C-alpha cells in the first residue's frame, strides 16, 4: 500500500518550517484547505506561523510553478512543492529563461495520480477524514460515507497516461519514488473524433465553445508556458485581439494562445481545469501535441527540451506538403 499525499503532509510542514527559520528560503508555495475537502487551493507562506495552514491531500492538483514568476526579481530563494507534472512546468519556466533554478528550493512529491475533486465532491461523502491507496483504487472515507474509487475512473485524465510520476531534480524528496509507469497509453481518441467530423460540424462545435468564453484570461494566467513579461493580448499597439467580446476575437485569442504554446505545452491540463466556462481547452493543446508527435517525430513534446519544437527543423525528414 504505497503512501498517499497526506502521509507526507507532516514531513512537508517540518521541512518548510526548517527552511523558513534557517532563512534558506523566504517563502514557500504549497497547498491549503479550500472551501471543502475536495478543492485545495494554492497557499504562499512566508512566516513559520503560517506553515500549519499547509496541507497535502490526494486532491492537490493545482500547478503552482507559475507563481515563481512573482519572485524572479526578489533576492533569496523560493520554496515550492512539485509533483511530476509540475516539474515539467518548472522545466518549461527554466528553459524559457524566466526562472533561475538556483533561486528555487524544490520539494519533490512523487505522485501516483491525483483524484478529480469535481467528480468525488458529487458523491456526497462529506468532509474527508482519510484517503488510502488500495493499488487500483483510492478508498475515500468521509463523515457522510466512504467509497472505493477506481483510479481509472476518478483520477484526472492526464494522470492516467502520465509517464513522469517522479519530479526530477528535486532538492528534497517527500518519501520515495513511485513506479513510473502509465496506467494507459496516451489517448488522443477525442482528438481524432473531432478531426473526423465534417468541417462544418467541427466549426459549430468550436463556435459553441468559444462563444462561452468571457475573456477572463484564467487559462493564460495559470499556464507555465504562458510566461511572457508583457503578454501580446495586453499590448494596445499593435492590437492583435480586440477588446470586444465576440466570437471572432475569441477565435483569434484561442488560436494565438494555443499556437504560442504549441510544442511547449507540458500537458498539465490546468488551462482546462481553471476555465470558469468549462471550455475544453486541452482539446486544442493535445491536437497540437498529436501533430507535433506525428509530423516532427518528437515522441514527448510535453517534456521541455533545450530547443523548441518550432525553433528547429529537419531538412529532409520534415514532411514536405507544399511543393
Amino acid at each position, binding site marked *: 500500500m504505497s503512501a498517499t499525499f497526506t502521509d507526507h503532509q507532516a514531513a512537508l510542514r517540518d521541512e518548510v518550517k526548517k527552511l523558513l527559520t534557517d532563512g534558506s528560503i523566504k*517563502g514557500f508555495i504549497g497547498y*491549503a*484547505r*479550500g*472551501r*471543502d475537502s475536495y*478543492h485545495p*487551493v*494554492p*497557499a*504562499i*507562506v*512566508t512566516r513559520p506561523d*503560517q506553515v500549519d*495552514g*499547509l496541507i497535502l491531500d490526494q486532491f492537490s492538483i*493545482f500547478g503552482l510553478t*507559475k*507563481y515563481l514568476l*512573482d519572485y524572479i526579481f526578489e533576492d533569496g530563494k523560493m520554496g515550492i512543492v512539485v509533483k511530476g507534472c509540475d516539474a515539467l512546468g518548472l522545466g518549461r519556466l527554466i528553459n524559457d529563461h524566466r526562472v533561475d533554478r538556483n533561486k528555487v528550493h524544490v520539494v519533490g512529491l512523487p505522485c501516483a495520480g491525483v483524484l478529480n475533486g469535481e467528480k468525488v465532491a458529487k458523491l456526497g461523502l462529506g468532509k474527508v477524514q482519510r484517503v488510502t491507496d488500495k493499488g487500483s483504487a483510492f478508498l475515500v472515507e468521509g463523515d457522510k460515507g466512504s467509497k472505493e474509487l477506481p483510479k481509472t475512473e476518478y483520477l484526472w485524465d492526464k494522470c492516467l497516461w502520465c509517464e513522469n510520476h517522479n519530479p526530477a531534480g528535486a532538492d528534497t524528496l517527500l518519501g520515495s519514488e513511485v513506479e513510473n509507469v502509465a496506467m494507459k497509453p496516451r489517448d488522443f481518441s477525442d482528438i481524432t473524433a473531432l478531426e473526423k467530423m465534417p468541417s462544418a460540424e467541427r466549426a459549430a462545435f468550436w463556435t*459553441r*465553445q468559444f462563444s*462561452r468564453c*468571457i*475573456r*477572463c*484570461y*484564467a487559462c*493564460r*494566467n*495559470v499556464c507555465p508556458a504562458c510566461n511572457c513579461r508583457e503578454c501580446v493580448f*495586453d499590448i494596445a499597439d499593435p492590437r492583435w485581439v*480586440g*477588446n*470586444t*467580446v*465576440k466570437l471572432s476575437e475569441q477565435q483569434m485569442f484561442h488560436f494565438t494562445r494555443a499556437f504560442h504554446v504549441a510544442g511547449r505545452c507540458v500537458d498539465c491540463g490546468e488551462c482546462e*481545469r*481553471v476555465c*470558469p*466556462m*468549462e471550455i475544453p481547452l486541452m482539446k486544442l493543446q493535445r491536437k497540437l501535441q498529436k501533430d507535433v508527435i506525428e509530423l516532427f517525430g518528437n515522441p514527448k513534446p510535453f517534456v521541455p527540451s533545450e530547443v523548441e519544437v518550432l525553433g528547429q527543423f529537419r531538412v529532409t525528414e520534415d514532411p514536405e506538403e507544399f511543393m
Partner: protein
Amino acid sequence: MLLTITADNLKSLLDKLARDSLLVAPVLEDGVTRLKPVKAASEIALDYSNTATSIKDFLFPQSEDLLRFVTDGTLSIEEIKPERAQVAFGIRPCDLASVALMDKVLTTGEYADTHYQARRKNTVLIGLACESPADTCFCTSYGYNPGHSAGADVMLYKDGDQYLAEALSDKGREVVGGPGEGLFKPADEAAGQAVKKAYAEKEVPFGKEVDVEGIDQLLDNFFDDQYWDDVSKKCLGCGTCTYVCPTCHCFLLTDEARGGEGLRFRCWDSCMFANYTKMAGGHNPRPSKKERVRQRFMHKLNYYPHRYHSYLCTGCGRCVAMCPVGLHIAGVIKDVKGVKAHA
C-alpha cells in the same frame, strides 16, 4: 394578489414571450447553464442552482457599441440605442438583488448611464425562487433569502408541479394580463403566503458561516494590514471573479475602425488585471496583486457601503465556486472578522 400557474401554462406563456420579443432564459449547454436567448420554452433548463453568469449580461453586456462614426472627408456620428424589448426568465433572488445594487450606481446620482437605463426600461424580469441553494450560496448573510423577490416584475415560486406567481410591477402586471391572459388562476392567499414563507426560511448552509455584520467598519482601518500581502499572493490576476460577479460594473471605452468607418464601444474591464490602472508612460498606481485584491474587496465591502449604504455583494457565491485559487469574498469576510479561513 397571489396567483398560480401550471407548468404547462408557464411553458406556453414562455413560448408566447419568445415569439413576441427577445426571451432570455437559462440554457444548459456543454455542462454549463447560462442565460441565453431562446426561441422556445423547450430549450429552457430548470434544474440549476444558478446560471454561470448573471442577468448583468443582458443589462450591462460585456461588449456594447455606443456609437458609430463615418469619416470619409466629413465626420458623422450616430448613437446606437438599445431599444430591443427583452424578457428575462429564471432570475434568482440574489441576481434580482444585484440588479438593485447596479441600479444605484448606474441610474442614480448626477450621471445616469443612458444605455443601462434604456435596457432596464425595456427588460421584464421574471424571478424564480431558489428550490435548492448551492453549497457556495450565502445570500442570507446579506439579509436576502431564497424567496427574496424585490426587483422582479413577476416572481414565481415552484410549488409541487405548479408555480405560485406574483406580479410586483406594472410591467409584471402587463405580462400577466397580456401574454399571460387566461394562464394564471388566483391562488389561495394563506397557502400562497405559506409557500412564500417556506422559501424565505429555506436553509442556506454556507450563509450561516459568513457573518457580514460590521465588516464595513472593520475595513475602515484595515487598509495597511499585512493580511492583504498574504492573501493576494495566491491570486492569479485573472478576471474570473469580476466577470462572473453580478455586481461588478467597471468598463473601458475604445474605438475600433475599419477604414473610414468605426464604432465606439465599451466592454467590461477587471480591477484584477495588471493593466487596469496602467497609465500612459507606464506608471501604475496599483502595481502588484496586493493593491488590486485589496481594491476589489474594499470597493464591495467598504467604499460602496459608505456611499450607497449596502454591500456590493448579494452572496450569489459565483466567485466562491469559480475562483481558481479560492480567493473569494466569503473567505475575506471571515478572515477580516478574525475567523481564519485563508492560510
